[in-house]
């Protein structure tokens, strides 16, 4: 926001009232303060509806979502007696029979309340295979008849395996680091230190790396394509520049979905891009561009190009061409002049454009979903998948949490170096 002219009222001076302060002046200053207070209230009241609406429709949902990443009371709620019985447990070996008995009682309660499945699923997230074992035990408890519950539980080997009880004990803490660690392919091991999950379960670091790689590749591609064009527009005569800028803005104003749709048509095996490559003799055989990394990067580069280009252009426009002429006339070779005079000045624009593109790429969802293959899905696609398909909302929350931290950190850098003003381009 541009600065607003300072108030014509010099408040401190009025408030101090100088040495010859008299009652009149004091009452005037009080009146002004009262009036200012009223103004403030009024402007707060004006802004309040939107702020409240944003808090309700955006702020609270996101806070609640993120809280799921660290707060999961399912097991604690489902196993109150067990968690009590486990409070004195050392954490190694098997707990005493009281814990087994408490578990049996809790399982029965869950069956009665219809929450056994929730518990089984939640435990399964921490302990693969637990789901069917919990349900099995619940069924056996139900049909046990006269058999003592302790015996029933102990007859299921699962409850005597080494990993089971630590997982339960961990689960009874509603505040948990489990999901956040999982989102980084980490977990607590039995002796209380953090370790990497086995390779066949490790997904997310790879997905984060992939997301960063795609974002970096797209950023670089947009810079290579955008910088020269920005330079040309900035130095072209007015009429031509206007036409060129429209060429940049037209795609900018077209929605991501529409442009992704266009690329799905273009990238088909029998689509135009393949036709063109074949006709030019670049390839002998049609390429598989749909559902591929390269197709994804091409489409994302197209979508992001204006975001990189426009900030660069807006800085270039402020650099008078006479500067370069002066550099030439002073004997600077074109490349030297460009590197030493021009580049340092446009650098903030380049930074702004590239950071913006990089940050926006981290959150891509539509384009990878439609153009990428299974191994080109980015972090947002995994978040959506955990919500819709796997129904594991805690995991979705943990991944969102990490994605958001990265995004906000990068924006923090952006705002710090370049100021929020440049965001207006978005």
């Amino acid at each position: 926001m541009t600065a607003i002219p300072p108030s014509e009222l010099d408040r401190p001076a009025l408030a101090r009232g100088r040495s010859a302060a008299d009652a009149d002046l004091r009452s005037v200053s009080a009146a002004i303060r009262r009036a200012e207070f009223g103004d403030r209230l009024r402007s707060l009241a004006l802004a309040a509806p939107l702020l409240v609406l944003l808090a309700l429709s955006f702020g609270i949902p996101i806070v609640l979502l993120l809280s799921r990443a660290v707060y999961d009371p399912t097991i604690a709620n489902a196993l109150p007696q067990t968690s009590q019985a486990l409070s004195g447990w050392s954490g190694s070996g098997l707990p005493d029979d009281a814990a087994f008995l408490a578990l049996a009682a809790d399982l029965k309660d869950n069956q009665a309340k219809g929450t056994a499945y929730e518990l089984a699923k939640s435990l399964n997230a921490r302990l693969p295979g637990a789901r069917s074992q919990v349900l099995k035990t619940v069924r056996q408890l139900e049909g046990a008849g006269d058999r003592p519950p302790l015996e029933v539980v102990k007859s299921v080997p699962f409850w005597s395996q080494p990993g089971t009880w630590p997982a339960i004990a961990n689960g009874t803490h509603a505040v948990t680091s489990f999901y956040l660690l999982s989102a980084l392919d980490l977990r607590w091991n039995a002796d209380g230190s953090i370790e990497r999950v086995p390779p066949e379960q490790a997904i997310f670091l790879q997905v984060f790396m992939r997301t960063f790689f795609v974002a970096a590749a797209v950023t670089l591609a947009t810079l290579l394509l955008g910088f020269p064009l920005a330079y040309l527009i900035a130095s072209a005569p007015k009429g031509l520049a206007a036409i060129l800028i429209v060429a940049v803005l037209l795609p900018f104003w077209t929605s991501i979905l529409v442009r992704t749709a266009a690329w799905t048509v273009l990238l088909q095996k029998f689509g135009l891009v393949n036709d063109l490559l074949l006709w030019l003799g670049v390839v002998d055989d049609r390429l598989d561009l749909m559902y591929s990394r390269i197709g994804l990067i091409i489409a994302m580069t197209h979508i992001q190009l204006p975001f990189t280009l426009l900030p660069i252009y807006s800085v270039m426009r402020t650099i008078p061409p006479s500067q370069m002429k002066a550099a030439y006339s002073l004997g600077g070779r074109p490349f030297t002049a460009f590197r030493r005079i021009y580049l340092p000045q446009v650098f903030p624009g380049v930074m702004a454009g590239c950071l913006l593109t990089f940050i926006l790429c981290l959150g891509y969802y539509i384009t990878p979903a439609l153009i990428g293959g299974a191994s080109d899905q980015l972090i947002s696609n995994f978040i959506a998948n955990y919500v819709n398909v796997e129904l594991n909302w805690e995991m979705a929350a943990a991944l969102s949490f990490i994605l958001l931290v990265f995004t906000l950190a990068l924006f923090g850098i952006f705002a710090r170096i370049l100021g929020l003003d440049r965001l207006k381009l978005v």
Partner: protein
Amino acid sequence: MMLSPYPTTGERIRIGLLWLWCGLVILFLLVPILIPVPLSFNSGSFFIFPLEGISTRWYEVVLGTQRWQSAIGNSLLVAFGTTLIATTLGTMTAIALADEKFPGRRIVMPLLLSPLIVPVVITAVGSYLFYARVGLASTYAGIILAHTALASPFVVVTVAASLTGFDRNLMRAAAISGAKPVRSFFTVMLPLILPGVLSGAAFAFVTSFDEVVVVQFLASANQRTMPLEMFIGLREKLSPAITAAATLMMGLSIVLLVVANILARRGQKRPAKGA
């Protein structure tokens, strides 16, 4: 980039290459958005050039079948609802923030802009889980609310930009002449900042009209919008009807945003979006 009066061969080559490169980049920018247009008038049902013939049959599909009609209706309802709320509240907030005495402006502004920063999947998932709990999932109201969050930053920014050119003394003059604040807003301030407000409204409309991620999570079949219908079509049955829908959406967005930018330019020297 123009040549200097006495260009060297090296300079000619460099500038020739620059033009060539930029020409290719322009093609890269424009061809993909222009491709759906001719394809949408294709009479055949494949995406292959040369066209089999010119026809408007795919537009008839989009404008004539119940499925697309209700999608268009939903899109318009949601977009107008969003525009109305986002413009009203966004304008009020921008006016409040333009007052330098507004407490905590430095904190409020980034908060207002945060819907633009947070990856949209997170917004969509968050509102989906929360709205389901309060009974707003699968309702128009829920979608409008979520879209308002996404659209209102544009309104705040454009109106704030137009307010920088507004002389607050005019309001004081109106107050001294005895006008109540509401009256002076409608008779003095609004006419002057109207271009900014309208341009913000256009941005809000387009933001909602083009949005697909939030809708994907929040909408049930009854609230399917045009972008969602397109998204499903793209995944399932790629038919040229999609190119027709894309052309329509693109046309509407471009017209609205051109108008918005002209308005923004007229209202203020520094437009909010674009150069």
